[in-house]
C-alpha cells in the first residue's frame, strides 16, 4: 500500500524537549530538520492526527505532500492550465494532421476528375485526416493499377496541410494505325459540296449525289486497274444536306426584369458548394458575389440579390415568325459539327392559331458527311477476286 508521506512544521523553542515528547508517541519520523526555531518533520499523513492530539502545545501545519500525492496536488492546482494545454496539444495534432486542400496537378480535366473521385473513395478529402506515407503509397499503386491505360505515373506530395497530387497521363501511341486500311464513306445522303483529301483515291466529284454508306474516298490506290497500295483514306468531304424543322411558337411569352429592389446575404463556399447564411427574401432574383475572405478551400462572399419580376409580353405575327425561324435554326445547329454551316432556310408552311403559330422550316446545310471505315485485308482480297 502506498503511504502518504507529508512534511509538517511547527514552532519549537526547545528541540530536545520536543524530540523527547515525540518518542513516546511511537511514530515513524523519516526526517527531522530544525531551522530557525521551527522543526520540520517528514511523517505519514495518518500520524499528523496523533501529533495534533498528543502534542497540543505545538501547532502543526502541513506544508507539502510528497511522492505521487504531491504530483496529484500540483496537477489539481494547475488543472485549468493542464486542460488547456492538453486540449491545445490535441487541437494542434488534429490540425497538423488535417488536409485542408488537395491540389491535383494536371492540365487534363478528365484526369483530374478521375483522381479526385478515386481520392474521395480512399478517404482523402478536404477536412479529413492525413494518411501515412505507407498508406499513400499503397493508394497510389492501387490507382495506377486501376487505370493502366490512362495514368503513367503519380505521386503524393504532402506539404503541411496541403496534399499535392502530381499525375502523368499515359499517352498510348497506336502503332498499328499506320497499318490500318480504311475508306471514307458517307454518313448521310446529299450533294457533294467540297472535297478536301490528304490520302486515298477520290471516287466522287462535286455536285454528285451520294447516298448514306457510299464510299467517297477509297483506301485502295489503284493504277492501271491494279491494286498498287493500301492506305487509310483521310480527308473531309462536305455535302449539301436538307433538314425540315417544325416549330410551334406561342404569341405570349414571359420575360424577367429587375425591379430595382436589392438585398444582401452572406454565402460561404467549400469545394464548389455555396451555402447561404441568411434566408432568401425574394422569390426570384439575380445574384452577384463579392469575395470577402478566402482561406484554403473556403470562400466567404457577400451576395447582392436584385429582385426580378415576371412580365408577360405578346409577339406580333412577324416577330413570332422570326422567333420561330430562330428556334428552328437553333434546333438544327445543335446537331451540327464544328465544320458544318447553315447555307439557307425557307419557311415551307405557316399556320396561325389563336394563341400559337406553327411553322415548317426547310434548312439547307453544308455538312461534313465523310467518316473513316476500316476494311480488313480479307475483305480487300475477296473484293479483288
Amino acid at each position, binding site marked *: 500500500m502506498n503511504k502518504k508521506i507529508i512534511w509538517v512544521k511547527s514552532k519549537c523553542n526547545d*528541540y*530536545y524537549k520536543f*524530540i523527547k515528547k515525540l*518518542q513516546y508517541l511511537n511514530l*515513524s*519520523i523519516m*526526517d*527531522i*530538520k530544525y531551522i530557525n526555531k521551527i522543526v520540520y518533520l517528514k511523517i505519514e499523513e495518518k500520524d499528523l492526527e496523533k501529533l495534533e492530539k498528543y502534542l497540543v502545545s505545538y501547532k502543526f501545519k502541513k506544508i507539502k505532500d510528497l511522492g505521487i500525492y504531491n504530483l496529484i496536488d500540483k496537477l489539481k492546482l494547475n488543472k485549468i492550465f493542464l486542460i488547456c494545454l492538453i486540449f491545445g496539444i490535441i487541437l494542434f495534432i488534429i490540425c497538423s494532421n488535417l488536409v485542408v486542400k488537395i491540389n491535383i496537378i494536371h492540365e487534363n480535366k478528365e484526369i483530374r476528375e478521375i483522381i479526385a473521385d478515386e481520392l474521395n473513395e480512399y478517404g482523402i478529402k478536404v477536412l479529413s485526416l492525413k494518411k501515412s506515407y505507407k498508406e499513400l503509397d499503397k493508394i497510389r499503386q492501387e490507382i495506377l493499377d486501376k487505370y493502366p491505360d490512362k495514368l503513367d505515373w503519380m505521386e503524393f506530395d504532402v506539404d503541411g496541410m496541403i496534399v499535392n497530387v502530381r499525375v502523368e497521363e499515359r499517352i498510348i501511341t497506336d502503332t498499328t494505325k499506320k497499318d490500318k486500311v480504311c475508306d471514307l464513306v458517307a454518313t448521310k445522303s446529299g450533294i457533294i459540296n467540297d472535297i478536301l483529301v490528304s490520302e486515298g483515291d477520290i471516287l466522287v466529284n462535286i455536285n454528285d449525289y451520294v447516298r448514306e454508306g457510299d464510299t467517297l474516298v477509297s483506301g485502295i490506290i489503284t493504277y492501271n486497274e491494279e491494286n498498287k497500295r493500301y492506305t487509310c483514306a483521310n480527308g473531309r468531304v462536305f455535302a449539301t444536306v436538307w433538314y425540315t424543322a417544325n416549330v410551334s411558337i406561342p404569341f405570349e411569352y414571359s420575360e424577367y426584369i429587375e425591379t430595382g429592389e436589392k438585398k444582401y446575404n452572406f454565402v460561404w463556399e467549400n469545394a464548389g458548394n455555396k451555402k447561404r447564411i441568411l434566408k432568401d427574401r425574394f422569390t426570384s432574383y439575380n445574384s452577384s458575389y463579392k469575395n470577402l475572405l478566402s482561406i484554403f478551400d473556403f470562400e466567404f462572399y457577400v451576395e447582392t440579390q436584385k429582385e426580378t419580376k415576371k412580365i408577360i409580353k405578346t409577339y406580333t405575327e412577324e416577330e413570332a415568325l422570326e422567333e420561330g425561324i430562330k428556334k428552328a435554326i437553333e434546333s438544327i445547329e445543335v446537331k451540327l459539327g464544328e465544320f458544318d454551316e447553315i447555307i439557307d432556310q425557307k419557311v415551307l408552311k405557316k399556320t396561325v392559331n389563336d394563341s400559337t403559330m406553327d411553322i415548317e422550316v426547310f434548312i439547307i446545310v453544308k455538312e461534313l458527311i465523310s467518316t473513316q471505315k476500316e476494311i480488313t485485308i480479307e475483305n480487300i482480297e475477296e473484293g479483288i477476286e
Partner: protein
Amino acid sequence: MHIKESLINFLYDKDYFINIFENYIHVFNFRELKSLSSKKIILKLDTFTLDIEGNDLFITKMLPNEVLIKGSISKVGFIYE
C-alpha cells in the same frame, strides 16, 4: 532447533546493530531514548545502555525501533547494568 531459531530471528528481528559513520550513528532495535541533549544522548537497548557523547547531536530520523543521530561524535560507550 537451529532452523527454528533462524526463522524466529528472521521473522522477529530482535538483534540490535549499531553503525557508526563519520558524522552519523545509526542504532537499530533500541528500546528507549533515556536522555537527549546536544552533547549527550543515552539510548536503552535490551541488555545494555548506549551512551553517545559529542557536539551538536541531532536526531534526523526516528522510527519506533531505530534512530539516526547526526553530529560530531566523540565517544560511544556501552554500559551494562
